[in-house]
């Protein structure tokens, strides 16, 4: 899937959430694309729940190792210092605060930080995989998603209507339109995509959006 300029800027902006030294899990879909924006010499450890810390570059089919994939099924590689481990070890790492950051997709994010991203009853019922533990236990959860769904409905809502993945887990939402934090008072606009005005973002958001005082940084 080719990304529009706005989406590409969103992914580039998302990469800036990763601080040196972090252990990071990038969820399937848009979050995986963040890898392409991390400089080769940037000190970070990427984790994938199927049993690898220190994910290296994704490989073309000709160069792929049939035994070496990420949780999304992409053929990845190791880098100096990588480690393999079993699934229990992999999630022990997730559940005990060793995972500094995860970026996940979403169907709905609520103003109280609730996340729904695994099931649409009657339409999409594949199971949650490792998503529940990532959402519930990563030290910081950032949702990376389009601002609205394909039908144009807001994904940022007052309350989730879909089955929850985890309650109150989301710290920040990054979309092609804006960077929005989940605060005790609800959604708060932090940054805005270049060329957009806050009213447009607020109109596409299904819950009250508080605006910062003064000029809003752009990305």
């Amino acid at each position: 899937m080719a990304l529009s300029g706005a989406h590409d800027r969103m992914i580039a902006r998302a990469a800036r959430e990763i601080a040196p030294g972090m252990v990071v899990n990038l969820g399937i879909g848009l979050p995986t694309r963040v890898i392409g924006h991390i400089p080769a010499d940037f000190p970070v450890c990427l984790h994938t729940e199927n049993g690898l810390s220190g994910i290296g570059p994704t490989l073309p089919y000709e160069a792929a190792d049939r035994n070496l994939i990420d949780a999304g099924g992409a053929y990845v590689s190791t880098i100096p210092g990588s480690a393999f481990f079993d699934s229990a070890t992999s999630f022990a790492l997730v559940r005990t605060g060793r995972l500094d950051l995860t970026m996940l997709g979403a169907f709905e994010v609520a103003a109280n930080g609730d996340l729904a991203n695994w099931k649409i009853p009657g339409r999409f019922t594949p199971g949650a995989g490792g998503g529940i533990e990532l959402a519930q236990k990563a030290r910081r959860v950032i949702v990376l998603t389009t601002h609205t769904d394909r039908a144009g409905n807001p994904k940022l809502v007052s309350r989730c209507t879909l089955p929850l993945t985890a309650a109150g887990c989301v710290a920040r939402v990054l979309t092609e339109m804006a960077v929005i934090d989940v605060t005790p008072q609800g959604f708060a606009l932090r940054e805005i995509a270049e060329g957009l005005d806050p009213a447009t973002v607020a109109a596409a958001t299904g819950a009250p959006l508080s605006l910062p005082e003064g000029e809003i940084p752009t990305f």
Partner: protein
Amino acid sequence: MKLPDKTTAMAEAVARIPSGATVMLSGFGVPGTPFALIQELLRQGQDNLTIIKNDANETGMGVDHLLAQGRIRRLITTHIGLNPRAVAMMNAGEIEVEFCAQGILAERIRAGGAGLKAIVTDIGRDTELTRGKPRLEIGGDSAVVELALRCDVALIHAARADTFGNLAFAATARNFAPLIAMAADMVIAEAEEIVPLGALPPDHVHTPGPFVDHVVALEALSEEYGVVRRA
């Protein structure tokens, strides 16, 4: 002293699996899935199986063959999104599916393999997956009791095995293999290479031989083991 030889012919090992058995399968997607053992199970005809595996593979691979032939009654799994047949059969009520958070499936299996009855966790407490499960208050916090899982038979793919059943796995093909190897009444491991005793250095053994009952040599790897070229 000499360690016993557990090498067994494929057909003979799989013939020990009865219909109605609960069978754990290693593998996360393709890596680690014991495709040859599954093919032999298909050939022999066992049915009414309860399968415990991270996923249901993809169309035309592994678990999908068992589904297509109606051999599976119940599936305990974490994610079946890459297998439309599994989703359709679940929605049509043709198979029973129990979803589990991935790390909790691993821990339930590990608990079963460690001779424990259950684990207690806060994972999934906000979700419908834990609805109806027993709850405990621990330190003022609500936790869910998740029952340990064991099985009649674990079918495992190993990169290397010695004749005693010491196993070593390759890269991300390790995933659930060391866990299910401990949680089964009988363990059958297929191995890409069977080496003589002593050729697997003790420090490089991922699953110790005492857990393994039968070691089956793979003559050649079928296409299913290869790199999947997705459109």
